[in-house]
């Protein structure tokens, strides 16, 4: 059973290839089905793998597929590591992935119906399946290099999918620019990961997880400094992929892609690769406490920073994007604190409710688009929350699932988000009180902006005619919403905490499951922390509802927070001007340097030397052609001079004159 591990990658890959070559022949309906089936089969395999692991007590199994590189002492193979950590990721990726694939068949059909061009439909599913294959390569690898192949692959698919509607966006290039931004910022992170891999190989002589970690555990003293460098570089890689400070700037722009993409890639799976990387390399991070602290603080700063920005956004997807960045900050802070299980737990629950929220927001957006279509409106922005309102009652399934997702994100018990977020807060409370304070504030802000979003979207009266005529999405889209909502409710129960020293059935299932791969300690549940966080979340939620219930009567009204905080609010809305800062500090100097080198060195220097050489030859030619001016007399003089010279040459110099003199009788 375990030997089927490579199928997780090969099945979606096959799906992508089938759709790539036969997509047009298959037609829309069937190509969508191919993609969904590929994803579902991969999920089936993952479940099988999980079952196998349960059967053998969580023991890791390596499943080799093919030999890859073997140069001297360096060898790396295409091999899969089936252990609890990777199977957890596989289940999340394929499970949520399949649901999103199903949703996407409906979503993209609506998109094609509204905007035309049905060839796109197949292309979309090729990319989606390709993404699944790459992501599963990433999580299933047994060595850093194969993981990096998957890492780059998901980056590529992210680029392809963000820029999916490549001719749309601001000025016709907005989407393409967002895709490039994602790719380039990711590249900075990839650089960090590559340097880390070089250092790992240089120290341990291998890139395969097992031998690497064994080497580091055996050589702790010798490797003390290099481990610090390696872990910081790994952090850089994780920060790029998981959108942490300072490399988070691509994620909000990535919302230019279709909503299923935002749900799958930028909420549930690709962005979690950074956390997976750190969890996988926990041996290294445990040996470098300073780096772990840096990780923790980066996560914390990101968590609170992104939460403040989310408060002030008016685009429904932007709020969720910054929320994702913030929640990823929670996860990164958790693994930085050494709470690997807490981080992974939050990763799983977050995948459920964030994917749910994104898909539901897609449903809302399309509902408004349907309303726009109904009233022949082509100018309203269907993603702007200020244009919504009064949608409660019009979208029966979407509204309830959205509510569940929002409450789960806000951390209201007994929904999933509460259990995972609480575990992170508990660990912070016990070991790093400053981090606990900051994360708690971030949690309060989270509840607030979700309450704000709920009220702005569903509450009050419809602020535009389009919202007034919104209608519910089809079953193919609402069914995944329902399933994800159920998961958001019960998902927390996989890791019920230790309430007392007496163990009970179902306690800490997830932690025990993950113990086979990452270290963990079972901490007793703290009613103090839990009730405090719940109370704060509820308070924050109600404040938001109260504040926004009567705030927006018209789409152009000012946000109540804007009235309260004035300048601070506009700073939050404009993302603390970080993008602009990067533009001035990094992008503009870089472009100027490029121009300088391009014009100065390339065109000026190298081209100039080559063309001037050619010019020199031409000048010489022109000079020499002066000899031929067509003047007959000139030619005559030349001929005569030449003849004289020849005579002198052949008959000797002075001797000739002497002979002449003798001949004259002198």
């Amino acid at each position, binding site marked *: 059973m375990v030997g089927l591990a490579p199928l997780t990658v090969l099945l979606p890959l096959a799906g992508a290839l089938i759709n790539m070559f036969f997509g047009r022949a298959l037609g829309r309906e069937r190509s969508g089905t191919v993609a969904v089936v590929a994803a579902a089969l991969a999920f089936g395999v993952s479940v099988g793998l999980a079952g196998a692991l349960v059967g053998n007590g969580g023991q890791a199994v390596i499943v080799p597929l093919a030999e890859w590189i073997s140069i001297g002492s360096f060898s790396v193979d295409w091999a899969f590591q089936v252990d609890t950590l990777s199977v957890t990721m596989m289940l999340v990726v394929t499970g949520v992935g399949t649901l999103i694939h199903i949703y996407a068949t409906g979503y993209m059909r609506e998109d094609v119906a509204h905007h035309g061009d049905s060839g796109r439909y197949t292309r979309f599913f090729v990319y989606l399946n390709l993404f699944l294959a790459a992501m599963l390569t990433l999580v299933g690898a047994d060595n850093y290099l194969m993981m990096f192949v998957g890492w780059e692959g998901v980056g590529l698919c992210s680029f392809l999918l963000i820029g999916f509607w490549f001719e749309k966006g601001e000025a016709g290039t907005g989407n393409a620019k967002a895709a490039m931004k994602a790719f380039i910022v990711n590249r900075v992170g990839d650089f960090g990961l590559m340097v880390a891999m070089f250092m790992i190989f240089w120290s341990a002589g291998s890139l395969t997880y097992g031998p690497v970690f064994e080497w580091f555990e055996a050589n702790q003293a010798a490797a003390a400094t290099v481990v610090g460098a390696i872990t910081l570089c790994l952090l850089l890689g994780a920060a790029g992929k998981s959108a942490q400070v300072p490399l988070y700037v691509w994620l909000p722009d990535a919302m230019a892609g279709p909503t299923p993409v935002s749900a799958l890639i930028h909420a549930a799976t690709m962005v979690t690769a950074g956390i997976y990387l750190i969890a996988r390399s926990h041996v290294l991070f445990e040996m470098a406490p300073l780096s772990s602290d840096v990780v923790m603080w980066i996560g914390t700063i990101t968590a609170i920073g992104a939460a403040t920005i989310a408060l002030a956004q008016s685009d429904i997807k932007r709020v969720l994007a910054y929320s994702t960045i913030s929640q990823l900050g929670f996860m990164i802070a958790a693994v930085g604190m050494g709470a690997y299980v807490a981080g992974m737990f939050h990763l799983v629950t977050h995948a459920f409710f964030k994917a749910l929220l994104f898909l539901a927001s897609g449903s809302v957006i399309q509902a408004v688009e349907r309303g726009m279509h109904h009233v022949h409106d082509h100018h309203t922005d269907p993603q702007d929350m200020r244009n919504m309102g009064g949608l409660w009652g019009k979208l029966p399934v979407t509204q309830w699932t959205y509510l569940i997702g929002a409450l789960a994100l806000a951390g209201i018990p007994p929904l999933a988000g509460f259990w995972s977020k609480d575990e992170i807060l508990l660990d912070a409370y016990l070991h790093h009180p400053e981090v606990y304070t900051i994360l708690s504030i971030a949690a309060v802000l989270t509840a607030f902006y979700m309450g704000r979003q709920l009220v702005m979207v569903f509450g009050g009266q419809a602020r535009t005619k389009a919202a007034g005529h919104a209608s519910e999405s089809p079953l193919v889209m609402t069914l995944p919403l329902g399933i994800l909502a159920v998961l958001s409710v019960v998902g927390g129960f996989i890791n019920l905490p230790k309430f007392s020293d007496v163990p009970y059935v179902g306690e800490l299932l997830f932690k025990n499951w993950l113990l086979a791969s990452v270290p963990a300690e079972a901490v007793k549940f703290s009613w103090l922390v839990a009730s405090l966080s719940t109370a704060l979340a509820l308070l924050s939620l109600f404040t938001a509802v109260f504040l926004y219930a009567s705030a927006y009567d018209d789409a152009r009204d000012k946000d109540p927070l804007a009235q309260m905080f004035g300048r601070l609010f506009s700073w939050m809305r404009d993302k603390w001007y970080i993008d602009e800062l990067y533009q001035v500090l990094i992008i503009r100097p870089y472009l100027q340097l490029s121009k300088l080198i391009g014009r100065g060195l390339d065109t000026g220097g190298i081209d100039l030397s080559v063309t001037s050489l050619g010019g020199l030859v031409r000048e010489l030619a022109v000079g020499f052609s002066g000899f031929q*001016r*067509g*003047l*007959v007399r000139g030619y005559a003089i030349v001929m*005569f001079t030449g003849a004289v010279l020849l005579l002198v040459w052949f008959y000797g110099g002075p001797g000739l004159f002497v002979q002449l003199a003798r001949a004259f009788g002198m």
Partner: protein
Amino acid sequence: MLATIPTSWFVALSAVLFTMGVAGVLTRRNSIKVFMSVELMLNSANLAFVAFARQYMDQSGQLFVFFIMVVAAAEVAVGLALIVTIFRTKRSIDIDNMSDLKG
């Protein structure tokens, strides 16, 4: 016996005539004058041939003079025909103006 004129005088005269011919070719602008200078050069060569023929009593020198005269006549015929043709288009026989074959 009358004193024979030394051959060297003839050769010297030939040289002087040749030099005058060359000077004419190199400095005259009128094509007809250039042709006349060329004739002068040819005739100086004839004089040299005849002088040496008399000195060595070898008549092949005088025979050669016939050849040169024939060639000179032919050349003049062709050359004058060319000049007439050129004059028809250019209305001038200044050789400095005939530089259409410049490179």
